[in-house]
Every structure is written in structure tokens, then in C-alpha cells.
């Protein structure tokens, strides 16, 4: 059985990646399973300088999901290269560094400095965090801006550049096209869905920043729809599907919708070895269904005529 998939120029041991912001810097999860089984690890979002993140409460649980507003807390590019990358480099999997900046120039500078680090397989540009005042989503919702930023980051890195799209838009396909026009080699679809939870007794928001990003199985149907729309419009562009994936069958659904790989996110919080369990379940599904190569599933959704 073949689980290996190519993604842009990356060779992935499996279509299972772990999503930025849910897998720390990799090391946190090393006690629970062999990270080399993953196709890639997307790191916590890295900015040029370290960030302290938002006040608490930063997270709250909701029906089949959670809302977070961490605020892109991270150690900064320099410490990442010095303190976090050495472990990741020898983990046996592709290291995809998620990055962002507060300004256009910061994005570009961050991409350039990460590109210079040995052991970085690819960059994932985060233009979709709903939880920060600057950077994050403001560069990710206007197609012309997204194209320009992607192009600028593309020009300073020789590594594959993924763009992680926000679902908080009326037209995901327009954003996908904009990123690809700027030179994106792949798309991560989707980041969290802007959301809110309220404490009825205290009459207060449950998240310090009022709004946060919803993740977990609650958003899976939204993510599937968006992956399918983007894949239908841009069938040649590799997509890494993200959104509430909790089982091997969930992975199959995303691949059928057009994703080449998937990213396990919130489930790694519930269960640190979730990605390994999900990979085992994917293998079991393929065995039962007599599928010898996982690539057969990519985009293989059957939409009956007239639908």
C-alpha cells in the first residue's frame, strides 16, 4: 500500500500533516508517536520578533469544537532557528514553517530569514489568523493585496510557498486564485472560522478578545466545501485540507474533495497521538476498500449528473 504523496516539490511520507498552532514546535508531541510518520509538521506561526500573545481567557470549548484567540504567540524567527529547528530537523519529517508579519515588509523579511535556515522544507504564509490586530487576516481577504504579498514572499524564498487561506470570506476561490497568481505553490484550506461564545450568567464574552477562531469537527463541513470549491477551480494546485479532521474516514473525505494532504489540528489537543491513529485508520480504510495507492483518492469525488 502506498501512502507517500508529492506536494509541490515536497516528498511526503504520508498525506497526514499537523497544523500550525496545534502542534507546538513538534517536540511537545515526540513522546507520543514517531513524527517521521507524518508527511510534514507545520510549526507554530513565526514572526520576526517574539510575541507574548493575547490575555486570558484565550480558549473555550464549544459544541464539537473550540474557539481560540492565542494571538500568534511565538518565540520569534531567531529563537526558532536556534532553539526549535534543530529538533525538528532530525525528526524525519518535512518542516513547514508557518510565518507572518505585522506589515507587508515584515512578512517578506520573515520569509527571507526563514528561507536561510537549514532544514526548512517549505514556508506556509499565514494571512488568515483572525486573532491579531495587525498582520493575520488583513493581508488575506483582498485578492490584489494577497497576490502582491505572495509575489513578494515568493521572490525571497527558493522553497515551496504555501498560502493558508481564511474561510472568513465570501469568495474562497477568488482568494485561492489571488494566491496562485502571486506564485503560491500550494494552498492550505482553511484557517479557523471567526466565532464567538458568551457566558450567559456573567453576560460576558468567553474569550478575552471577544471574537476568536473556531476549530474542530464543528467546522469540517465548511472546510470540505471550500477545499472542493478551490480544487474544482484550480485542479492543478495542491491543497492541504484542514478543518476538524478526527478519523481516517475524514481524511478520505478531504482527499476525495481534492486535497493532496490534510492537516490534523485541534484533535492533537484532545489526543496527542491523534495524527498517528488517523494515519492507521486511513491505512485500514484503504485495505478494506482495496485501494493500493492513496493518490487514487485525490479529487476522486463522484458528483452525480444534475447535481
Amino acid at each position, binding site marked *: 500500500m502506498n501512502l507517500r504523496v508529492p506536494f509541490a516539490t515536497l516528498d511526503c511520507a504520508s498525506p497526514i500533516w499537523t497544523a500550525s498552532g496545534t*502542534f*507546538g514546535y513538534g517536540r511537545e*508531541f515526540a513522546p507520543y508517536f514517531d513524527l517521521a510518520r507524518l508527511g510534514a509538521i507545520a510549526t507554530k506561526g513565526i514572526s520576526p520578533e517574539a510575541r507574548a500573545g493575547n490575555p486570558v481567557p*484565550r480558549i473555550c470549548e464549544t*459544541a464539537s469544537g473550540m474557539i481560540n484567540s*492565542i494571538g500568534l504567540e511565538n518565540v520569534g524567527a531567531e529563537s526558532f532557528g536556534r532553539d526549535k529547528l534543530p529538533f525538528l530537523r532530525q525528526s524525519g519529517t518535512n518542516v513547514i514553517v508557518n510565518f507572518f508579519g505585522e506589515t507587508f515588509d515584515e512578512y517578506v523579511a520573515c520569509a527571507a530569514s526563514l528561507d536561510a535556515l537549514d532544514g526548512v522544507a517549505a514556508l506556509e504564509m499565514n494571512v488568515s489568523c483572525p486573532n491579531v490586530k495587525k498582520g493575520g487576516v488583513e493581508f488575506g481577504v483582498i485578492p490584489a493585496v494577497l497576490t502582491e504579498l505572495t509575489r513578494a514572499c515568493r521572490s525571497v524564498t527558493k522553497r515551496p510557498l504555501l498560502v493558508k487561506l481564511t474561510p472568513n470570506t465570501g469568495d474562497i476561490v477568488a482568494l485561492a486564485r489571488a494566491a496562485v497568481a502571486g506564485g503560491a505553490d500550494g494552498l492550505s484550506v482553511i484557517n479557523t472560522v471567526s466565532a464567538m461564545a458568551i457566558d450567559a450568567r456573567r453576560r460576558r464574552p468567553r474569550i478575552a478578545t471577544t471574537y476568536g477562531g473556531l476549530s474542530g469537527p464543528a467546522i469540517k463541513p465548511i472546510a470540505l466545501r471550500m477545499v472542493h470549491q478551490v480544487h474544482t477551480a484550480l485542479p492543478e494546485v495542491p491543497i492541504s485540507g484542514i478543518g476538524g479532521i478526527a478519523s481516517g474516514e475524514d481524511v478520505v473525505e478531504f482527499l476525495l474533495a481534492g486535497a493532496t494532504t490534510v492537516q490534523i489540528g485541534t484533535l492533537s489537543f*484532545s*489526543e496527542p497521538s491523534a495524527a498517528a491513529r488517523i494515519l492507521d485508520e486511513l491505512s485500514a480504510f484503504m485495505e478494506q476498500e482495496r485501494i493500493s495507492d492513496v493518490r487514487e483518492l485525490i479529487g476522486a469525488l463522484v458528483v452525480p449528473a444534475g447535481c
Partner: protein
Amino acid sequence: MPTEFSARVLANRALAPGLFVLELADCEPLVGCLPGQFVMVRGEWGRDPLLPRAFSLLSARHGKCELLIKALGRGSRLLERSAVGATLQLLGPLGRPFPVPRAERRDFLIAGGVGLAPLLWHAEEAVRAGAKVELFYGARQEAELVLRERIEATGCRVQFTTEDGSFGRPGRVTAALQARLDEEHPTLLTCGPNAMMRAVVEIARARNLACFVSVEGEMACGIGACLGCAVQSAPGAARAYHYACIDGPVFDALQVVLP
């Protein structure tokens, strides 16, 4: 090293309305775990609730462990209905413990509500180690002062308090503590509601006593990945936040600002 494992419910004992102890078997991975450390617990309830719940251990010995739980939210109410023989998913041991009891140190333990769990275990271990501890255990009313026989069985000096005066010394647990401190110069270990712990920290500061607090935070993962359980660092610290899961839950009171 923390481990993911399945544990079996050996007993589910109701202590008072909404307060219960789960006794679990098949907990060999917790061998060597210390009072103040915690586990993340999930029932076999699918994806809703999605996240595991963090509980400080009431004990972990001989492949068994105990959790003292107050049914507050959806997860704890589901755990309250756990049947004997049911399977729970655990992750642990996690976090940093209270300072291990030592014969040459005198500890005063100040517990509020289910914050009793790690401190009762600490008291039991202290007695075993030949260390002297005193327990101050407060609640709003008598029914919420649970596990009293077991507390008495430690042989430690104990001061029970209730805010409504229905049992023990009337008033707050911190008042009982103050009264004893005129005679002693102990280390304070505390676990309970933040308001109570803030008062304990204030007392420790005023009297220049060492003080350790067990801090709760909104926690999704327990292993330093979600960054939900941020606790504000004390002024002047190198970083803005500590994390209850990996830097705590037990902190030297000088390290953090209690929420």
C-alpha cells in the same frame, strides 16, 4: 514521561451533591507521580465534548489513582455518571508537583473546595515521610467539606472552616490560617479558588513565608501546545506568561500573578 492510556473505573463514590471521587485502575503509567501533578481525562463520549479535562490527582499508588471532582460543566457531569467498569482515556502524569514533603520543613496546607485533592495526598505522603503538616480546609458549608474521615486518619492537625458556620471554625479558611501563623513560620502550599489563593499569597508576602500555589487555567492539551492556560508572570519576569500545564500547575507564588 507522560503517557496516553486507558483506565478502568473501579468505583464512583458520591460524597455530596455534585462532588464525587473516581477510583481508577490500570494506571501503572502514573507510578512515581507526585502530589500536585495532574492528568487529562476523556470519557468515551465521541467528539462532544471535544477536549479532555484536567484534574489534579487525589492519589496515585499501586497502579490505581483517584480523582476528586466537582460536577460543574458538561465534561465533569458526564464523568459523574461514569459506571463501574467504564473506560476513560488518560494522559499523564503532567505538570510540576508541590515540593516533596521533608521532615525538616513544616508545611501548612490551605485547601478550598476540590483543591483539597493534591493537598490531602501531600498530607498523606508527608506523614509517611515523617514530616509535620497542618491542613486548613474550608468550604461554604458542611456538606462541601468532604473526605473528613480520611483527613482525620492522617493524624495531621486539621482546621476545618465553613463560611456559614455549619461545621468547624466559622468564616474563611484564611482567617484560621492567620490565627495559627502567630505561632509558626511554615511553608504554605495552597490549592483552591483564586480568591482564596490570592489571600494566602498576600499573607505569605506579609509574613515573608515561602508559598506555593496550584493554578488552574483553561487548558485544551495539557502538554504546552495549545497555550490556552497562560498565567501572567510576576512583574520583572523574562516572559509575559507562564503555562499552568508545563511550568505549573504548582508555582512558587513569586513567579506568577494569580488571575
